[in-house]
Protein backbone atom coordinates (compact mmCIF):
# COMPACT_ATOMS: atom_id res chain seq x y z
CA UNK A 1 0.00 0.00 0.00
CA UNK A 2 2.85 2.38 0.76
CA UNK A 3 3.78 2.28 -2.93
CA UNK A 4 0.29 3.33 -3.98
CA UNK A 5 1.15 7.00 -4.01
CA UNK A 6 4.16 6.37 -6.22
CA UNK A 7 2.09 4.38 -8.71
CA UNK A 8 -0.71 6.90 -8.64
CA UNK A 9 1.60 9.92 -9.03
CA UNK A 10 3.19 8.34 -12.07
CA UNK A 11 -0.20 7.90 -13.73
CA UNK A 12 -0.99 11.54 -13.04
CA UNK A 13 2.22 12.65 -14.71
CA UNK A 14 0.78 12.67 -18.24
CA UNK A 15 -2.83 13.34 -17.37
CA UNK A 16 -4.14 13.63 -20.90
CA UNK A 17 -2.53 10.40 -21.98
CA UNK A 18 -3.73 8.55 -18.91
CA UNK A 19 -7.28 9.86 -19.31
CA UNK A 20 -7.40 8.97 -23.01
CA UNK A 21 -6.08 5.49 -22.32
CA UNK A 22 -8.54 4.95 -19.51
CA UNK A 23 -11.36 6.17 -21.75
CA UNK A 24 -10.42 3.78 -24.57
CA UNK A 25 -10.38 0.91 -22.13
CA UNK A 26 -13.69 2.09 -20.71
CA UNK A 27 -15.30 2.16 -24.14
CA UNK A 28 -14.03 -1.34 -24.93
CA UNK A 29 -15.49 -2.79 -21.76
CA UNK A 30 -18.72 -0.82 -22.17
CA UNK A 31 -19.10 -2.33 -25.61
CA UNK A 32 -18.28 -5.75 -24.23
CA UNK A 33 -21.04 -5.43 -21.63
CA UNK A 34 -23.68 -4.07 -24.00
CA UNK A 35 -22.96 -6.64 -26.69
CA UNK A 36 -23.12 -9.33 -24.02
CA UNK A 37 -26.63 -8.20 -23.13
CA UNK A 38 -27.71 -8.10 -26.78
CA UNK A 39 -26.20 -11.48 -27.58
CA UNK A 40 -27.93 -12.91 -24.55
CA UNK A 41 -31.16 -11.51 -25.86
CA UNK A 42 -30.71 -13.10 -29.30
CA UNK A 43 -29.90 -16.49 -27.93
CA UNK A 44 -32.67 -15.86 -25.43
CA UNK A 45 -34.09 -18.93 -23.81
CA UNK A 46 -31.16 -21.16 -24.65
CA UNK A 47 -29.66 -20.67 -21.23
CA UNK A 48 -32.94 -21.08 -19.42
CA UNK A 49 -34.29 -23.87 -21.62
CA UNK A 50 -35.78 -26.67 -19.59
CA UNK A 51 -33.49 -29.65 -19.73
CA UNK A 52 -36.52 -31.87 -19.30
CA UNK A 53 -38.33 -30.46 -22.36
CA UNK A 54 -38.24 -31.63 -25.98
CA UNK A 55 -39.63 -29.93 -29.04
CA UNK A 56 -41.38 -32.13 -31.59
CA UNK A 57 -41.90 -30.54 -35.00
CA UNK A 58 -42.48 -31.47 -38.62
CA UNK A 59 -39.49 -33.27 -40.04
CA UNK A 60 -39.16 -30.89 -43.00
CA UNK A 61 -39.76 -27.42 -41.60
CA UNK A 62 -41.29 -25.67 -38.68
CA UNK A 63 -43.72 -24.05 -41.11
CA UNK A 64 -45.45 -27.36 -41.78
CA UNK A 65 -48.09 -28.43 -39.32
CA UNK A 66 -48.64 -31.57 -37.29
CA UNK A 67 -51.97 -33.26 -36.47
CA UNK A 68 -53.28 -32.43 -33.02
CA UNK A 69 -54.02 -36.09 -32.66
CA UNK A 70 -50.31 -36.73 -32.20
CA UNK A 71 -50.54 -35.36 -28.68
CA UNK A 72 -52.20 -38.45 -27.27
CA UNK A 73 -49.81 -40.76 -29.13
CA UNK A 74 -46.75 -38.88 -27.87
CA UNK A 75 -48.05 -39.08 -24.32
CA UNK A 76 -48.26 -42.87 -24.69
CA UNK A 77 -44.53 -43.19 -25.20
CA UNK A 78 -42.60 -44.34 -22.15
CA UNK A 79 -40.54 -41.59 -20.62
CA UNK A 80 -42.96 -38.87 -21.77
CA UNK A 81 -44.89 -37.12 -19.04
CA UNK A 82 -46.82 -34.52 -20.92
CA UNK A 83 -47.14 -32.96 -24.38
CA UNK A 84 -48.44 -29.47 -25.12
CA UNK A 85 -49.25 -28.15 -28.59
CA UNK A 86 -48.23 -24.68 -29.76
CA UNK A 87 -48.79 -22.89 -33.06
CA UNK A 88 -47.26 -19.78 -34.57
CA UNK A 89 -50.04 -17.23 -34.98
CA UNK A 90 -47.90 -14.54 -36.57
CA UNK A 91 -50.44 -11.70 -36.23
CA UNK A 92 -49.90 -7.98 -36.23
CA UNK A 93 -50.82 -5.65 -33.39
CA UNK A 94 -51.43 -2.15 -34.80
CA UNK A 95 -48.37 -2.13 -37.03
CA UNK A 96 -45.96 -4.78 -38.36
CA UNK A 97 -42.99 -3.44 -36.42
CA UNK A 98 -44.73 -4.32 -33.15
CA UNK A 99 -43.28 -7.78 -33.27
CA UNK A 100 -43.98 -10.34 -30.56
CA UNK A 101 -44.93 -14.00 -30.41
CA UNK A 102 -48.60 -14.96 -30.20
CA UNK A 103 -49.35 -18.59 -29.49
CA UNK A 104 -52.63 -20.46 -29.18
CA UNK A 105 -52.19 -23.00 -26.36
CA UNK A 106 -54.13 -25.22 -24.01
CA UNK A 107 -53.95 -22.90 -20.94
CA UNK A 108 -53.91 -25.42 -18.11
CA UNK A 109 -51.45 -27.74 -19.82
CA UNK A 110 -49.29 -24.86 -20.92
CA UNK A 111 -48.96 -23.35 -17.44
CA UNK A 112 -48.22 -26.76 -16.08
CA UNK A 113 -45.48 -27.24 -18.67
CA UNK A 114 -43.84 -23.88 -17.94
CA UNK A 115 -43.49 -23.39 -14.18
CA UNK A 116 -41.24 -20.38 -14.91
CA UNK A 117 -44.31 -18.50 -16.14
CA UNK A 118 -45.74 -16.93 -13.02
CA UNK A 119 -49.41 -16.03 -13.00
CA UNK A 120 -51.56 -15.32 -9.98
CA UNK A 121 -54.15 -17.98 -9.13
CA UNK A 122 -56.93 -15.50 -9.73
CA UNK A 123 -55.69 -14.56 -13.20
CA UNK A 124 -55.11 -18.19 -14.01
CA UNK A 125 -58.70 -19.07 -13.11
CA UNK A 126 -60.09 -16.22 -15.15
CA UNK A 127 -58.01 -17.25 -18.14
CA UNK A 128 -59.16 -20.85 -17.95
CA UNK A 129 -62.78 -19.66 -17.83
CA UNK A 130 -62.60 -16.98 -20.51
CA UNK A 131 -62.74 -18.34 -24.06
CA UNK A 132 -61.39 -15.18 -25.71
CA UNK A 133 -59.07 -14.55 -22.79
CA UNK A 134 -55.35 -14.04 -23.33
CA UNK A 135 -52.36 -13.48 -21.10
CA UNK A 136 -49.27 -11.41 -21.92
CA UNK A 137 -45.77 -11.17 -20.55
CA UNK A 138 -44.92 -8.21 -18.30
CA UNK A 139 -42.50 -6.81 -20.85
CA UNK A 140 -44.93 -6.43 -23.78
CA UNK A 141 -47.79 -5.40 -21.49
CA UNK A 142 -45.63 -2.50 -20.34
CA UNK A 143 -44.43 -1.78 -23.84
CA UNK A 144 -47.96 -1.33 -25.18
CA UNK A 145 -49.44 0.01 -21.95
CA UNK A 146 -51.89 -2.85 -21.61
CA UNK A 147 -53.78 -3.55 -18.45
CA UNK A 148 -56.11 -6.31 -17.37
CA UNK A 149 -59.49 -6.07 -19.04
CA UNK A 150 -58.17 -4.40 -22.21
CA UNK A 151 -59.47 -5.58 -25.55
CA UNK A 152 -56.55 -6.48 -27.79
CA UNK A 153 -57.29 -6.76 -31.51
CA UNK A 154 -54.73 -8.69 -33.54
CA UNK A 155 -54.71 -8.90 -37.31
CA UNK A 156 -53.96 -12.31 -38.72
CA UNK A 157 -51.42 -12.69 -41.48
CA UNK A 158 -51.93 -16.46 -41.76
CA UNK A 159 -55.08 -17.43 -39.91
CA UNK A 160 -58.08 -15.78 -41.58
CA UNK A 161 -61.30 -16.19 -39.64
CA UNK A 162 -64.24 -18.22 -40.85
CA UNK A 163 -66.20 -15.08 -41.70
CA UNK A 164 -63.30 -13.90 -43.85
CA UNK A 165 -62.16 -11.18 -41.48
CA UNK A 166 -58.57 -10.89 -40.33
CA UNK A 167 -59.17 -9.37 -36.92
CA UNK A 168 -59.12 -11.54 -33.85
CA UNK A 169 -60.26 -9.94 -30.61
CA UNK A 170 -58.80 -10.98 -27.29
CA UNK A 171 -59.48 -9.90 -23.77
CA UNK A 172 -56.40 -9.47 -21.62
CA UNK A 173 -57.08 -11.42 -18.42
CA UNK A 174 -53.60 -11.85 -17.04
CA UNK A 175 -50.06 -10.54 -17.08
CA UNK A 176 -47.32 -13.01 -16.24
CA UNK A 177 -43.82 -12.57 -14.88
CA UNK A 178 -40.80 -14.73 -15.60
CA UNK A 179 -39.39 -16.71 -12.71
CA UNK A 180 -35.89 -16.59 -14.18
CA UNK A 181 -33.95 -13.65 -15.56
CA UNK A 182 -33.95 -15.00 -19.11
CA UNK A 183 -37.62 -16.06 -19.21
CA UNK A 184 -39.36 -14.66 -22.25
CA UNK A 185 -41.78 -11.97 -21.09
CA UNK A 186 -42.87 -10.97 -24.57
CA UNK A 187 -45.31 -13.79 -25.31
CA UNK A 188 -49.00 -13.39 -25.94
CA UNK A 189 -50.93 -16.58 -25.17
CA UNK A 190 -54.55 -17.48 -25.85
CA UNK A 191 -56.96 -20.43 -26.02
CA UNK A 192 -56.34 -23.06 -28.67
CA UNK A 193 -60.08 -23.89 -28.74
CA UNK A 194 -61.04 -20.33 -29.60
CA UNK A 195 -58.38 -20.32 -32.31
CA UNK A 196 -59.21 -23.74 -33.76
CA UNK A 197 -62.94 -23.09 -34.01
CA UNK A 198 -62.48 -19.62 -35.38
CA UNK A 199 -59.96 -20.27 -38.14
CA UNK A 200 -61.10 -20.84 -41.70
CA UNK A 201 -58.69 -23.71 -42.47
CA UNK A 202 -56.26 -26.03 -40.81
CA UNK A 203 -58.59 -27.40 -38.15
CA UNK A 204 -56.94 -30.05 -36.06
CA UNK A 205 -53.46 -29.00 -37.08
CA UNK A 206 -50.89 -27.44 -34.75
CA UNK A 207 -47.36 -26.06 -35.09
CA UNK A 208 -45.24 -28.14 -32.77
CA UNK A 209 -45.30 -29.98 -29.47
CA UNK A 210 -43.44 -29.24 -26.31
CA UNK A 211 -42.87 -32.51 -24.51
CA UNK A 212 -41.82 -32.96 -20.92
CA UNK A 213 -39.82 -36.06 -20.23
CA UNK A 214 -39.26 -37.87 -16.96
CA UNK A 215 -35.50 -38.17 -17.21
CA UNK A 216 -33.39 -35.49 -18.95
CA UNK A 217 -30.57 -38.04 -19.25
CA UNK A 218 -32.70 -40.00 -21.68
CA UNK A 219 -33.63 -37.05 -23.93
CA UNK A 220 -31.94 -38.51 -27.01
CA UNK A 221 -33.54 -41.89 -26.51
CA UNK A 222 -37.06 -40.49 -26.02
CA UNK A 223 -36.60 -38.17 -29.03
CA UNK A 224 -35.73 -41.18 -31.17
CA UNK A 225 -38.76 -43.10 -29.90
CA UNK A 226 -41.11 -40.24 -30.72
CA UNK A 227 -39.69 -39.85 -34.21
CA UNK A 228 -39.90 -43.58 -34.88
CA UNK A 229 -43.54 -43.58 -33.71
CA UNK A 230 -44.39 -41.36 -36.70
CA UNK A 231 -41.84 -42.69 -39.16
CA UNK A 232 -43.22 -43.59 -42.57
CA UNK A 233 -46.43 -41.65 -41.90
CA UNK A 234 -47.42 -38.70 -44.14
CA UNK A 235 -46.23 -36.31 -41.43
CA UNK A 236 -42.97 -37.42 -39.91
CA UNK A 237 -41.51 -35.60 -36.93
CA UNK A 238 -38.20 -34.29 -35.70
CA UNK A 239 -37.63 -34.16 -31.93
CA UNK A 240 -34.86 -32.40 -30.08
CA UNK A 241 -34.17 -30.85 -26.68
CA UNK A 242 -35.60 -27.37 -26.18
CA UNK A 243 -32.14 -25.79 -25.82
CA UNK A 244 -30.96 -27.18 -29.16
CA UNK A 245 -34.19 -26.08 -30.81
CA UNK A 246 -33.91 -22.53 -29.50
CA UNK A 247 -30.26 -22.40 -30.50
CA UNK A 248 -31.10 -23.47 -34.03
CA UNK A 249 -33.86 -20.87 -34.09
CA UNK A 250 -31.48 -18.16 -32.89
CA UNK A 251 -28.91 -19.22 -35.49
CA UNK A 252 -31.41 -18.45 -38.25
CA UNK A 253 -30.95 -14.75 -37.50
CA UNK A 254 -27.28 -15.29 -38.28
CA UNK A 255 -24.69 -16.28 -35.81
CA UNK A 256 -25.09 -13.10 -33.85
CA UNK A 257 -22.94 -14.38 -31.07
CA UNK A 258 -20.05 -15.02 -33.41
CA UNK A 259 -20.31 -11.62 -35.06
CA UNK A 260 -20.37 -9.88 -31.68
CA UNK A 261 -17.50 -11.91 -30.31
CA UNK A 262 -15.48 -10.95 -33.39
CA UNK A 263 -16.23 -7.26 -32.92
CA UNK A 264 -15.31 -7.38 -29.25
CA UNK A 265 -12.13 -9.31 -30.00
CA UNK A 266 -11.07 -6.71 -32.58
CA UNK A 267 -11.82 -3.85 -30.20
CA UNK A 268 -9.93 -5.52 -27.37
CA UNK A 269 -6.93 -6.16 -29.55
CA UNK A 270 -6.82 -2.48 -30.52
CA UNK A 271 -7.21 -1.34 -26.94
CA UNK A 272 -4.52 -3.74 -25.83
CA UNK A 273 -2.16 -2.01 -28.25
CA UNK A 274 -3.20 1.40 -26.90
CA UNK A 275 -2.64 0.35 -23.29
CA UNK A 276 0.59 -1.45 -24.14
CA UNK A 277 1.82 1.62 -25.97
CA UNK A 278 1.00 3.85 -23.01
CA UNK A 279 2.93 1.57 -20.69
CA UNK A 280 5.88 1.31 -23.09
CA UNK A 281 6.12 5.11 -23.22
CA UNK A 282 5.70 5.35 -19.47
CA UNK A 283 8.80 3.22 -19.06
CA UNK A 284 10.89 4.69 -21.86
CA UNK A 285 10.52 8.30 -20.78
CA UNK A 286 11.25 7.36 -17.16
CA UNK A 287 14.37 5.26 -17.67
CA UNK A 288 16.36 7.64 -15.54
CA UNK A 289 13.85 7.73 -12.69
CA UNK A 290 13.55 3.96 -12.66
CA UNK A 291 17.34 3.78 -12.47
CA UNK A 292 17.31 6.17 -9.52
CA UNK A 293 14.80 3.92 -7.74
CA UNK A 294 17.18 1.02 -8.23
CA UNK A 295 20.15 3.10 -7.10
CA UNK A 296 18.23 3.92 -3.92
CA UNK A 297 17.82 0.21 -3.31
CA UNK A 298 14.64 -0.92 -5.08
CA UNK A 299 15.18 -4.43 -6.42
CA UNK A 300 14.73 -5.37 -10.08
CA UNK A 301 11.59 -7.21 -9.12
CA UNK A 302 10.33 -4.25 -7.11
CA UNK A 303 10.66 -1.93 -10.10
CA UNK A 304 9.00 -4.54 -12.34
CA UNK A 305 6.14 -4.70 -9.84
CA UNK A 306 5.73 -0.93 -9.75
CA UNK A 307 5.38 -0.73 -13.54
CA UNK A 308 3.01 -3.69 -13.66
CA UNK A 309 0.95 -2.14 -10.87
CA UNK A 310 0.55 0.98 -12.99
CA UNK A 311 -0.81 -1.12 -15.81
CA UNK A 312 -3.26 -2.80 -13.45
CA UNK A 313 -4.50 0.49 -12.01
CA UNK A 314 -4.97 1.90 -15.50
CA UNK A 315 -6.93 -1.08 -16.81
CA UNK A 316 -8.89 -1.74 -13.63
CA UNK A 317 -10.13 1.85 -13.53
CA UNK A 318 -11.02 1.91 -17.24
CA UNK A 319 -12.38 -1.63 -17.43
CA UNK A 320 -14.20 -1.42 -14.11
CA UNK A 321 -15.88 1.83 -15.09
CA UNK A 322 -16.75 0.38 -18.51
CA UNK A 323 -18.39 -2.72 -17.04
CA UNK A 324 -20.17 -0.67 -14.38
CA UNK A 325 -21.48 1.75 -16.98
CA UNK A 326 -22.65 -1.13 -19.18
CA UNK A 327 -24.43 -2.63 -16.20
CA UNK A 328 -26.08 0.69 -15.41
CA UNK A 329 -27.19 1.34 -18.99
CA UNK A 330 -28.56 -2.17 -19.38
CA UNK A 331 -30.43 -1.97 -16.09
CA UNK A 332 -32.09 1.23 -17.31
CA UNK A 333 -33.90 -1.02 -19.75
CA UNK A 334 -34.09 -2.37 -23.22
CA UNK A 335 -33.23 0.35 -25.79
CA UNK A 336 -35.75 -1.14 -28.26
CA UNK A 337 -38.45 -0.52 -25.72
CA UNK A 338 -39.49 -4.11 -25.28
CA UNK A 339 -38.67 -5.70 -28.63
CA UNK A 340 -35.98 -7.86 -27.11
CA UNK A 341 -37.42 -10.81 -25.20
CA UNK A 342 -34.99 -10.13 -22.36
CA UNK A 343 -32.17 -7.68 -21.76
CA UNK A 344 -29.50 -8.07 -19.11
CA UNK A 345 -25.79 -8.85 -18.87
CA UNK A 346 -25.45 -12.52 -17.94
CA UNK A 347 -23.39 -13.12 -14.80
CA UNK A 348 -21.09 -15.29 -16.87
CA UNK A 349 -20.29 -12.32 -19.14
CA UNK A 350 -19.59 -10.10 -16.14
CA UNK A 351 -17.18 -12.70 -14.78
CA UNK A 352 -15.50 -12.98 -18.18
CA UNK A 353 -15.28 -9.18 -18.24
CA UNK A 354 -13.50 -9.07 -14.89
CA UNK A 355 -11.12 -11.82 -16.00
CA UNK A 356 -10.44 -9.87 -19.21
CA UNK A 357 -9.56 -6.79 -17.16
CA UNK A 358 -6.84 -8.71 -15.37
CA UNK A 359 -5.61 -10.40 -18.53
CA UNK A 360 -5.42 -7.09 -20.38
CA UNK A 361 -3.64 -5.38 -17.49
CA UNK A 362 -1.07 -8.14 -17.39
CA UNK A 363 -0.50 -8.40 -21.12
CA UNK A 364 -0.28 -4.63 -21.60
CA UNK A 365 2.13 -4.18 -18.71
CA UNK A 366 4.34 -7.21 -18.64
CA UNK A 367 6.78 -6.35 -21.45
CA UNK A 368 7.50 -2.78 -20.29
CA UNK A 369 7.66 -4.06 -16.71
CA UNK A 370 10.20 -6.74 -17.56
CA UNK A 371 12.16 -4.15 -19.51
CA UNK A 372 12.14 -1.87 -16.47
CA UNK A 373 13.17 -4.74 -14.22
CA UNK A 374 16.12 -5.53 -16.47
CA UNK A 375 17.49 -1.98 -16.59
CA UNK A 376 21.09 -1.99 -15.39
CA UNK A 377 21.45 0.85 -12.92
CA UNK A 378 24.87 2.12 -13.89
CA UNK A 379 23.97 2.11 -17.61
CA UNK A 380 20.55 3.66 -17.15
CA UNK A 381 21.89 6.45 -14.93
CA UNK A 382 24.18 7.59 -17.74
CA UNK A 383 21.22 8.28 -20.06
Amino acid at each position, binding site marked *: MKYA*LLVWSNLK*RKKTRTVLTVLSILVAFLLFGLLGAIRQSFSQGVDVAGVDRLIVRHKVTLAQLLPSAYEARIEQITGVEEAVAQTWFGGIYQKPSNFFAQLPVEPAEFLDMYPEILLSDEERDTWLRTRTGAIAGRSIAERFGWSIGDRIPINATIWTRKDGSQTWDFELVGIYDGAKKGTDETQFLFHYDYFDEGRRFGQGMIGWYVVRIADPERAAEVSAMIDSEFANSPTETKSEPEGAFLQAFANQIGDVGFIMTSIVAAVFFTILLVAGNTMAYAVRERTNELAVLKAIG*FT*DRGVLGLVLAESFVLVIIGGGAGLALAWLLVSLGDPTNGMLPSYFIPTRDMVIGVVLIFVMAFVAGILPAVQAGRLRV*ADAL*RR
Partner: protein
Amino acid sequence: MNETVEDGAVSGLVAVRGVDKVFKRGSEEIHVLGGLDLDIPEGEFLALMGPSGSGKSTLLNLIGGLDRPSQGTIEVADERIDNLSNRKLAAWRARHIGLVFQFYNLMPVLSARRNVELPLLLTHLSRSERRKRAEIALDIVGLSHRMSHFPRTLSGGEQQRVGIARAIVTDPTLLLCDEPTGDLDRTSSGEILDLLQALNREQGKTIVMVTHDMHAAERASRTLFLDKGRLSLEPSV
Protein backbone atom coordinates in the same frame (compact mmCIF):
# COMPACT_ATOMS: atom_id res chain seq x y z
CA MET B 1 41.08 -10.29 18.45
CA ASN B 2 38.54 -7.65 19.23
CA GLU B 3 41.14 -4.95 19.08
CA THR B 4 42.25 -6.01 15.63
CA VAL B 5 38.69 -5.86 14.35
CA GLU B 6 38.18 -2.46 15.86
CA ASP B 7 41.47 -1.25 14.47
CA GLY B 8 40.45 -2.51 11.05
CA ALA B 9 37.07 -0.85 11.30
CA VAL B 10 38.59 2.46 12.21
CA SER B 11 41.36 2.41 9.64
CA GLY B 12 39.36 1.36 6.57
CA LEU B 13 35.66 1.70 5.94
CA VAL B 14 36.15 1.11 2.24
CA ALA B 15 38.86 -1.15 0.84
CA VAL B 16 39.25 -1.35 -2.94
CA ARG B 17 41.85 -3.93 -4.01
CA GLY B 18 43.26 -4.49 -7.48
CA VAL B 19 40.11 -3.37 -9.23
CA ASP B 20 39.87 -3.46 -13.02
CA LYS B 21 36.86 -2.19 -14.88
CA VAL B 22 36.47 -2.98 -18.53
CA PHE B 23 33.47 -1.85 -20.58
CA LYS B 24 32.61 -3.57 -23.82
CA ARG B 25 31.24 -1.38 -26.53
CA GLY B 26 30.58 -3.71 -29.44
CA SER B 27 33.85 -5.47 -30.16
CA GLU B 28 35.84 -2.65 -28.56
CA GLU B 29 37.04 -2.99 -24.96
CA ILE B 30 37.44 0.14 -22.87
CA HIS B 31 39.80 -0.30 -19.92
CA VAL B 32 38.68 2.38 -17.48
CA LEU B 33 40.25 1.25 -14.21
CA GLY B 34 43.33 -0.95 -13.96
CA GLY B 35 44.65 -2.49 -10.76
CA LEU B 36 43.19 0.27 -8.63
CA ASP B 37 43.65 0.29 -4.85
CA LEU B 38 41.88 2.67 -2.49
CA ASP B 39 41.30 2.85 1.26
CA ILE B 40 38.81 5.24 2.76
CA PRO B 41 38.83 5.54 6.56
CA GLU B 42 35.62 6.07 8.40
CA GLY B 43 34.75 9.75 8.81
CA GLU B 44 36.78 10.90 5.82
CA PHE B 45 35.59 13.50 3.32
CA LEU B 46 37.33 12.41 0.14
CA ALA B 47 37.33 14.41 -3.07
CA LEU B 48 37.93 12.61 -6.39
CA MET B 49 39.16 14.67 -9.31
CA GLY B 50 40.33 13.88 -12.78
CA PRO B 51 39.70 14.57 -16.43
CA SER B 52 36.38 13.82 -18.01
CA GLY B 53 36.13 10.17 -18.93
CA SER B 54 38.83 9.12 -16.49
CA GLY B 55 36.42 6.85 -14.64
CA LYS B 56 35.44 8.87 -11.55
CA SER B 57 31.77 8.00 -11.84
CA THR B 58 32.69 4.42 -12.61
CA LEU B 59 34.71 4.16 -9.41
CA LEU B 60 31.93 5.78 -7.40
CA ASN B 61 29.42 3.31 -8.87
CA LEU B 62 31.65 0.40 -7.87
CA ILE B 63 32.00 1.62 -4.28
CA GLY B 64 28.26 2.25 -4.15
CA GLY B 65 27.38 -1.22 -5.43
CA LEU B 66 25.68 0.11 -8.55
CA ASP B 67 28.06 -1.89 -10.71
CA ARG B 68 30.59 -4.70 -10.29
CA PRO B 69 34.31 -4.68 -11.02
CA SER B 70 35.70 -6.84 -13.83
CA GLN B 71 38.53 -7.84 -11.54
CA GLY B 72 39.51 -7.29 -7.90
CA THR B 73 37.59 -6.93 -4.64
CA ILE B 74 35.65 -4.21 -2.87
CA GLU B 75 34.91 -4.26 0.83
CA VAL B 76 32.71 -1.79 2.63
CA ALA B 77 32.39 -2.04 6.39
CA ASP B 78 34.05 -5.45 6.28
CA GLU B 79 31.61 -6.82 3.74
CA ARG B 80 32.56 -7.99 0.25
CA ILE B 81 30.17 -6.39 -2.19
CA ASP B 82 31.76 -7.25 -5.54
CA ASN B 83 30.27 -10.73 -5.55
CA LEU B 84 26.76 -10.06 -4.26
CA SER B 85 23.71 -10.97 -6.36
CA ASN B 86 21.60 -8.15 -7.86
CA ARG B 87 18.98 -8.57 -5.20
CA LYS B 88 21.40 -8.62 -2.27
CA LEU B 89 23.24 -5.65 -3.74
CA ALA B 90 19.98 -3.67 -3.96
CA ALA B 91 19.25 -4.40 -0.30
CA TRP B 92 22.81 -3.55 0.61
CA ARG B 93 22.57 -0.19 -1.19
CA ALA B 94 19.33 0.60 0.58
CA ARG B 95 21.04 0.02 3.93
CA HIS B 96 24.51 1.50 3.40
CA ILE B 97 24.60 4.02 0.57
CA GLY B 98 23.29 7.53 0.11
CA LEU B 99 23.65 8.89 -3.41
CA VAL B 100 23.72 12.51 -4.54
CA PHE B 101 23.61 13.18 -8.27
CA GLN B 102 24.70 16.12 -10.39
CA PHE B 103 21.22 16.64 -11.79
CA TYR B 104 19.46 15.88 -8.49
CA ASN B 105 17.37 13.07 -10.04
CA LEU B 106 14.29 13.80 -7.97
CA MET B 107 10.90 12.31 -8.88
CA PRO B 108 9.05 15.20 -10.50
CA VAL B 109 5.68 13.75 -9.50
CA LEU B 110 6.44 13.68 -5.79
CA SER B 111 6.69 16.52 -3.31
CA ALA B 112 9.99 17.25 -1.57
CA ARG B 113 8.90 15.30 1.51
CA ARG B 114 7.73 12.32 -0.53
CA ASN B 115 11.00 12.34 -2.45
CA VAL B 116 12.95 12.22 0.77
CA GLU B 117 10.66 9.50 2.10
CA LEU B 118 11.27 7.29 -0.94
CA PRO B 119 14.24 5.27 0.42
CA LEU B 120 12.31 4.71 3.66
CA LEU B 121 9.61 2.82 1.74
CA LEU B 122 12.08 -0.04 1.63
CA THR B 123 12.30 -0.19 5.42
CA HIS B 124 9.80 -1.52 7.93
CA LEU B 125 9.17 1.90 9.40
CA SER B 126 5.59 2.94 9.97
CA ARG B 127 3.99 5.68 7.95
CA SER B 128 4.28 8.26 10.69
CA GLU B 129 7.87 7.29 11.46
CA ARG B 130 8.78 7.62 7.79
CA ARG B 131 7.18 11.00 7.70
CA LYS B 132 8.97 12.13 10.82
CA ARG B 133 12.38 11.06 9.55
CA ALA B 134 11.83 12.73 6.19
CA GLU B 135 10.97 15.93 8.01
CA ILE B 136 14.08 15.72 10.16
CA ALA B 137 16.25 15.17 7.07
CA LEU B 138 14.66 18.16 5.35
CA ASP B 139 15.24 20.18 8.49
CA ILE B 140 18.93 19.26 8.47
CA VAL B 141 19.31 20.57 4.92
CA GLY B 142 17.31 23.66 5.88
CA LEU B 143 14.25 23.03 3.75
CA SER B 144 11.49 22.47 6.34
CA HIS B 145 9.55 25.31 4.78
CA ARG B 146 9.59 23.73 1.30
CA MET B 147 8.34 20.29 2.32
CA SER B 148 5.24 20.12 0.14
CA HIS B 149 6.83 21.82 -2.86
CA PHE B 150 7.36 19.86 -6.05
CA PRO B 151 10.86 19.75 -7.57
CA ARG B 152 9.99 21.99 -10.52
CA THR B 153 9.06 24.82 -8.13
CA LEU B 154 12.43 24.67 -6.36
CA SER B 155 15.71 26.30 -7.36
CA GLY B 156 18.67 24.12 -8.35
CA GLY B 157 20.30 24.58 -4.98
CA GLU B 158 17.08 23.69 -3.19
CA GLN B 159 16.58 20.63 -5.36
CA GLN B 160 20.09 19.49 -4.53
CA ARG B 161 19.37 19.94 -0.84
CA VAL B 162 16.31 17.72 -1.25
CA GLY B 163 18.64 15.26 -3.00
CA ILE B 164 20.99 15.34 -0.01
CA ALA B 165 18.11 14.92 2.42
CA ARG B 166 17.01 11.86 0.44
CA ALA B 167 20.59 10.52 0.59
CA ILE B 168 20.95 10.91 4.36
CA VAL B 169 17.44 10.00 5.47
CA THR B 170 18.36 6.32 5.96
CA ASP B 171 21.50 7.30 7.88
CA PRO B 172 23.76 5.47 5.40
CA THR B 173 27.28 4.22 6.04
CA LEU B 174 28.62 6.14 3.04
CA LEU B 175 27.53 9.27 1.23
CA LEU B 176 28.54 9.24 -2.46
CA CYS B 177 28.21 12.48 -4.39
CA ASP B 178 28.84 12.66 -8.13
CA GLU B 179 29.53 16.31 -9.00
CA PRO B 180 26.94 17.57 -6.52
CA THR B 181 27.68 21.19 -7.40
CA GLY B 182 28.26 20.63 -11.09
CA ASP B 183 24.99 22.22 -12.07
CA LEU B 184 24.93 25.06 -9.53
CA ASP B 185 26.07 28.67 -9.36
CA ARG B 186 28.76 29.81 -6.92
CA THR B 187 26.47 30.75 -4.06
CA SER B 188 24.39 27.59 -4.22
CA SER B 189 27.55 25.52 -4.60
CA GLY B 190 28.94 27.14 -1.48
CA GLU B 191 25.81 26.29 0.46
CA ILE B 192 25.82 22.67 -0.68
CA LEU B 193 29.49 22.31 0.22
CA ASP B 194 28.84 23.89 3.64
CA LEU B 195 26.14 21.32 4.13
CA LEU B 196 28.33 18.38 3.11
CA GLN B 197 31.13 19.65 5.32
CA ALA B 198 28.77 19.97 8.27
CA LEU B 199 27.46 16.45 7.69
CA ASN B 200 31.04 15.22 7.69
CA ARG B 201 32.22 17.18 10.71
CA GLU B 202 29.16 17.22 12.92
CA GLN B 203 27.57 13.88 12.08
CA GLY B 204 30.75 12.02 11.19
CA LYS B 205 29.46 11.01 7.78
CA THR B 206 31.99 9.41 5.46
CA ILE B 207 31.72 11.20 2.13
CA VAL B 208 33.18 10.56 -1.29
CA MET B 209 32.65 13.45 -3.68
CA VAL B 210 33.54 13.58 -7.36
CA THR B 211 34.17 17.11 -8.56
CA HIS B 212 35.79 19.17 -11.28
CA ASP B 213 36.02 22.22 -9.08
CA MET B 214 39.26 22.89 -7.15
CA HIS B 215 37.36 25.09 -4.66
CA ALA B 216 34.96 22.28 -3.94
CA ALA B 217 37.83 19.84 -3.48
CA GLU B 218 39.42 22.16 -0.95
CA ARG B 219 36.53 21.52 1.41
CA ALA B 220 37.41 17.83 1.54
CA SER B 221 39.89 16.31 4.01
CA ARG B 222 41.75 14.57 1.18
CA THR B 223 41.84 14.87 -2.60
CA LEU B 224 42.83 12.10 -5.00
CA PHE B 225 43.31 12.37 -8.74
CA LEU B 226 42.19 9.69 -11.12
CA ASP B 227 43.89 9.37 -14.47
CA LYS B 228 44.59 6.54 -16.86
CA GLY B 229 42.93 4.10 -14.54
CA ARG B 230 44.99 4.90 -11.48
CA LEU B 231 44.80 7.16 -8.46
CA SER B 232 47.48 9.61 -7.41
CA LEU B 233 47.97 12.40 -4.89
CA GLU B 234 48.92 14.93 -7.56
CA PRO B 235 47.17 15.87 -10.77
CA SER B 236 49.14 14.57 -13.77
CA VAL B 237 50.32 17.21 -16.16
